[in-house]
């Protein structure tokens, strides 16, 4: 697309403007309203991103890789040695759904922060909201950047607010959790930095670029990166780069064995931050793999497919088993995230159309269902001030509306057909089954079977949790609890509606926007 548009810049930086603006006010009501307003505006703006997909300029199945909409390029840093960094943003099928998801979830998280005064750390609303809005800018920036350097900067920008949001407003072990989160992510981003610089400095001077699309589509660059004779410290360049990037993104997804920061971060983070963490931050890993690893390094992707598949299967099964053994409600949901994200990795590793679609769908589906689950945990935590599953019981009787919404949310997470979780799983499983000899080969069907077996465990731990928390006799200590308030229903309803919509109309709500791009990535990689 030749025309340039500043829409994405507005989407990305509106929250920051809001964040700065609210620093001038002191009344907590005003601060909250400003914050909410400045999360609603980017959400509404981001809805406009659907436009090219509806006016036909994107084609029937969504545009291919490299077909970027709302592109804007502004030269930024330019040094004498040809070190050129552009402010280059744009969206395609990969990023568009995630941008909309980010603005939506942040908006809901902002609304979920409304009862800030009742939190333990009730001080510093201004700082909290400022950081929340800054975080949104960072996340959106990551998804819209088409310049690797810019991407890296946004990646780091997002890290710091998250660190403070967990570390200042978190639970009893907040310092531990925040540091763990920070160090893990930082370690990953350092590896990513190495890869970024390698991508930049390996090609001859004339070809050097940070442009992500060019890295993936320029034949000369592709030939260089994927040539088995290109070496890096004595190893195959493509494999090493893939591994470096993969570790960086795997930490974010998170993939076994880099996952242990996640349960701690979730348990300590306040509810809205958990929603963002699960809904958006985890998707950056999957997005990064789709954006960098597969298009730029397809040879390594094929070479390492079985390895990735193994990790995906481990995530599914191991995450589910860990979830089953948790007593802490929030930890259970956190481990279920790990299990669900395994399908994302497995679907990618399969390198098939269905697998890619499944991975993408699962990311969005999980981005809807898991914030919903975290908020559901938050609702009961606000009332009971504890999260021990075994101390709950009969909550469906005590809080019928909340109980019904909780059932919807957790069944979406369980992968019940007609709800969003099912589509992602079934696509990923089918995609794994059909994986060809270039990717999973003989492991395709065994991996598919193991992934399908994960669904049994998922049903096991979710239903067991529902039984212990929502079913059973009403307990006297919870009898007085008020049902879900209007605000809580308003937060839950959009996610509930989307969970159903995605489950019933997978094509219309998501796949038609992403399939073209995903197929194009596959055909670029020659599978």
């Amino acid at each position: 697309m030749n025309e340039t548009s500043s829409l994405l810049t507005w989407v990305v930086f509106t929250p920051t403007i809001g964040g700065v603006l609210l620093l001038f006010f002191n009344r907590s009501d005003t601060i909250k309203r400003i914050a909410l307003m400045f999360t609603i505006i980017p959400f509404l703006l981001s809805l406009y991103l659907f436009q090219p997909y509806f006016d036909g300029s994107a084609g029937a199945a969504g545009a291919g890789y490299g077909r970027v909409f709302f592109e804007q390029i502004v030269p930024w840093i330019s040094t004498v040695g040809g070190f050129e960094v552009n402010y280059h943003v744009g969206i395609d099928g990969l990023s568009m759904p995630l941008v909309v998801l980010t603005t939506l979830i942040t908006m809901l998280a902002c609304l979920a922060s409304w009862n800030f005064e009742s939190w333990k750390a009730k001080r510093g609303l201004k700082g909290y909201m400022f950081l929340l809005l800054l975080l949104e800018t960072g996340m959106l920036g990551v998804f819209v950047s088409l310049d690797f350097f810019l991407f890296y900067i946004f990646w780091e920008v997002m890290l710091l607010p998250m660190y403070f949001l967990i570390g200042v407003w978190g639970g009893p072990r907040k310092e531990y959790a925040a540091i763990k989160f920070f160090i893990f992510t930082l370690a990953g981003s350092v590896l990513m930095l190495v890869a970024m610089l390698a991508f930049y400095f390996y090609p001859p001077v004339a070809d050097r670029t940070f442009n992500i699309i060019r890295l993936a589509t320029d034949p000369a660059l592709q030939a260089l990166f994927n040539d088995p004779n290109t070496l890096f410290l004595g190893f195959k360049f493509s494999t090493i780069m893939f591994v470096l990037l993969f570790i960086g993104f795997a930490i974010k997804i998170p993939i076994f064995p880099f996952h242990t920061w996640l349960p701690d971060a979730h348990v300590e983070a306040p509810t809205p931050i958990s929603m963002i963490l699960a809904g958006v931050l985890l998707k950056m890993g999957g997005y990064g793999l789709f954006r960098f690893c597969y298009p730029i390094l397809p040879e390594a992707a094929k070479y390492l497919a079985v390895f990735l598949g193994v990790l995906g299967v481990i995530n599914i099964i191991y995450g589910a088993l860990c979830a089953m053994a948790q007593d802490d409600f929030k930890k259970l949901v956190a481990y279920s995230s790990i299990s669900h994200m395994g399908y994302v990795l497995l679907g990618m590793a399969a390198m098939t159309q269905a697998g890619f679609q499944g991975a993408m769908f699962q990311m969005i589906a999980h981005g809807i269902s898991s914030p919903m689950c975290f908020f559901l945990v938050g609702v009961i935590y606000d009332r009971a001030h504890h999260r021990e599953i075994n101390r709950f019981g009969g909550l469906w009787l005590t809080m019928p509306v909340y109980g019904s919404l909780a059932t919807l949310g957790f069944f979406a997470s369980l992968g019940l057909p007609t709800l969003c979780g099912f589509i992602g799983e079934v696509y990923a499983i089918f995609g794994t089954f059909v994986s060809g000899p270039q990717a999973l080969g003989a492991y395709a069907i065994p991996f598919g079977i193991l992934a399908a077996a994960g669904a049994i465990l998922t049903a096991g731990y979710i239903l067991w949790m529902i039984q212990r928390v929502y079913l059973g006799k009403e307990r006297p200590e919870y009898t007085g609890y008020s049902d879900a308030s209007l605000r809580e229903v308003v937060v839950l309803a959009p996610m509930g509606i989307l969970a159903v919509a995605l489950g019933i109309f997978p094509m219309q709500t998501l796949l038609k926007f992403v399939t073209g791009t995903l197929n194009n990535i596959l055909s670029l990689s020659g599978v």
Partner: protein
Amino acid sequence: MDDPGFLQSCLLAGVLVPLFSFVYLAFRGSKLKLARREEDEHGGNDAHDAHHPTGPGQGEPIAGWVATAAIGISLILAIIVTYGWYGMGALQRADAAEHAARTAPLWTMVGSVPIHFGVKLDSLTVIMFLMVTLCSTCIHLFSIGYMKGDPRFARFFTFLSLFCFSMLGLVISASLLFLYIFWELVGVCSYFLIGFWFEKKSASDAGLKAFVVNRVGDFGFMIGMGLCFVYLQTLSLDDTAARFAAGAREAGWMSAPGEAFQMLGAQRAPELFTTQFLGISLATWMGIGLFCGAIGKSAQFPLQVWLPDAMEGPTPVSALIHAATMVAAGVYLVARVFALLTPGAQMFIAVIGCITLTMAALIALVQTDIKRVLAYSTLSQLGYMIFGLGVGAWIAALFHLMTHAFFKAVLFLGSGQVIIGCHHEQDMRRMGGLLRKMPVTGLTFLVAVLAISGAGIPWLGIGLGGYYSKDEILAVAYYRQHNWTAAATHDEHAALPTGGQIVLAGYAQHDQEGAAESQAPVLAGAGQSAAEGETDYVARYAAGEHGVGTLPWILFFLPIAIAYVTPFYMGRCFFLTFLGKPRDKHVHEHAHESPTMYVPLLILAFMTVISGSFLFRDYVADSAPTAAPLVAAINGHDHALHAAHAALPTLVGFAFVVGLGLAWLIYRRGFDISEKIRVLPVIRQAHTVLWNKFYFDHVYNTVFRDGVRYVLAVICRLFDNWIIDGIVDNSARLTERISRFSGVVLDNMGVDGLVNLVGYIAWNLGGLFRSMQTGIVRNYILLAALAVAGLIISLWNVPVGVIVFVIAAGIIVIPWSRRPAVASERYR
């Protein structure tokens, strides 16, 4: 009616109406209210019950009427469709079915495979749709009475509506994926309704168990679908059958002519037959996988454990979901994918069905809970159906599905009447003599007992529902036992124009590798003579895929034997409940019938009586022909089958007389006689084993449930907390140690020491220089001279110059710095 899309639209509308009811009730159900006077009229009828607190429940009774009206509309539509369908000629039907397939909207693309939401329009769908709506409507009506006063009245009907939507959706689905989707949805409805009284731990446990056990079955279903997806590149029921056959043809499993697999776009279809895993072809694995879904949903061995526990749900739920419709969905699935079965898979199905029907019938012998007896009898009857499909009695199995739906609904609703009448007493040891108190219930129950027993007059061909259907399954089994191979040797038989009669004719030799495993069964199908394989069939077929040859005699013997056991345990149930002396005065005294509830009973009892009509088999017959490219489907009245039918009366014709008579002898006066019999040690031991349901629950609960929950999961948790986090934390700690070491030793003593040293020196030098600033000009001049000297020497040799400079400066300065050393102290 002339519009070919009319029936399809009716079916879709029939599916959607209960969905609207569900959505409406989900949001508004609990707020629906009648005016007060209505409540007074109906209140207090059953309200004096511990289980049913006083006063109407939420949304009572309007929510019930809304749901009933919705399913009633579906029933009317079903009747219209049935009328329309059977009023059509074959051409029109084909036209309508083709129209339904053609206009199916694209739902989504899985990779390059399109998934359409299509309506499968054939006789099986039409009949199933009618059966489901009819049973559902009756049971809805019954439930309004049964659930009276329940605090969650509206929620019950909400889920019932959702169930109807899902079940009807399942019936009309033309795609395996949609079948799976609705399959899971009926499962989740079953979960909610089993656990409807979730205050009881046992109820919520039972719901959980049902769902998870079903998921185990669905796991197999998913794998079957996955193989289908990979190798056949489609999930549409019609296309899978065609491509499967094409693949079999290409791989040499079948010699009948037909379209080539390349034409059908199934490039990998032949691999299904040529690829083996554990010595069994993937085609067989696919069939077994799909059948696993049925094992779960129809509660077949070894996943039979959930169904008896499902009786924790309200009785109408047991009647509708766990007897008439949902559990039969497994049978329906196998019937639908019959075309994808290989002989190996078919044998597997027959064996599983046979094990289930035997085991369940034996356990039913000792149960004392009235609903559990019925649950085990359901299991056993489902076993018959599955067995029927396994031996190829396609029509007979579905016929049995229909008749079973009606008589089992009567039995369950009757037991519901008894349970309500006896104030939620389900134990037959406390019943007895209820016939006089509940005549309508008792008599309809008796009709159903006779039906399930297969009562009829053999030579006249008159009988109740179960008589025809069970008889026919046994006849086909008998036929397969004796004629599995011989049938094809009759020339007239092989030459029979199959038209739905005999699809399997014989197996011809096909060389693959030339070794022992070299022969694969090959269909010499429709209209093709099997003369080339006339001799030595047994040996060849046995040498086919993993030794599946003749029907083992035990697979014929057990169903026959159980045909004698069925009337016995059903008779036992009836006599213990309705005859004899009341064993519990209190229960007996208050027993009563609710008139509002026996209308549905009468309708269903009527259906039980007439559903035995032979007409039915003709109704589904035209769905059958397409059913089997590879396996035997014996659906007709050919000579050999007639011979089998003729032989049957001597075998099972009077089984119901024997069974019921024996039950009457032992149980007509209660447990007295059976207690005496139980003194025998053999009987006692057998009783213990049966009472414990062959210990399946014990093993599963210990090994699988607790094993996963408390061992495997906990191991993973500990691994996570100790090993992985241990590594993380310890490496963090190590880093901290290193940094502390570097901090204390290197930094504080080394780097900081250096820094401090520099500072120290600087301060001291500062002091030094300050002390030099004495204000005495002579000293300044001296210094300047020395500096010049140093510089000059430096020109010649820098180090020497510096050294000279420093030494000279020292000599000059030291005498002057005798003042207190201020510098170092101030620095500290």
